[in-house]
């Protein structure tokens, strides 16, 4: 039984890692949802395997709950799925985030200078000026 459980655990772990690769790669929200569904069923398989190995029955309710509520995440995300532009759905790298952040700071700075040249801080909003 130990050998069987070891082989099963290796297969399940490999499947889980591959599904997580797809979660990372995207390219769209729905692809990630499908991959996360696979992760949920792999979780069920792992809990069942552990219960079969150590002959315990106290983890079986976890399986019931996972089977019952596992679909809610997919349904929720699918409700809010929208058309994504090409390349929008991938995970940004550190440099890209830094570039975006710098650009945002620049525009903010430019806005501030354009609206209020002389005295930084300006008046309180709603203040009556002469």
């Amino acid at each position: 039984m130990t050998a069987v459980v070891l082989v099963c655990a290796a297969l399940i772990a490999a499947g889980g890692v591959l599904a997580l690769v797809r979660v990372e790669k995207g390219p769209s929200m729905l692809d990630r949802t499908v991959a996360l569904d696979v992760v949920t069923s792999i979780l069920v398989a792992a809990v069942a395997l552990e219960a079969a190995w150590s002959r315990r029955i106290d983890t079986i309710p976890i399986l019931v709950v996972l089977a019952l509520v596992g679909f809610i995440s997919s349904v929720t995300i699918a409700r809010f799925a929208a058309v994504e532009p090409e390349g929008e759905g991938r995970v940004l790298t550190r440099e890209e985030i830094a570039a975006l952040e710098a650009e945002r700071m620049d525009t903010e700075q430019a806005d501030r200078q354009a609206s209020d040249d002389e005295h930084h801080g300006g008046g309180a909003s709603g203040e009556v000026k002469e």
Partner: protein
Amino acid sequence: MTWDLVLDVIAGVCLLGGSFLAFAAGLGVVRFPDLLARMHTATKPQVLGLMLMMLGLGIRLRTGEIIWMLVLVAVFQLLTSPVAAHMVSRAGYRTGKVRRDVLEVDELTDDLEAARAEIVAEAMDEEVAAEREAGEGRKG
């Protein structure tokens, strides 16, 4: 050769089958080209894989009362996974994630196009009829 050993071997085969399907799902989700193909492979551990795992677990546990809970797991999964798959595929179709060039049959798009053409034709007919009526009114 005892019954215990025979039952353990059967349970082991079922667990191996279920685990293999879980691995196949992970591989397919990574390798397949588009959303519908990935959804197809994702259903393997959700239904058959889960049933094999439950069967193996039930045979291995060999206690009468827990079997009903395992049946319940399979029933819940059978009830809920089609809902999720339906919602995901519908959202995928509406947001243009379904690639027509890799599909053999695409009846939904054909039907939608036919329905749209029918609506347009009806609108044209009505327009023509209205114009004719207006023309006759002017003459009279």
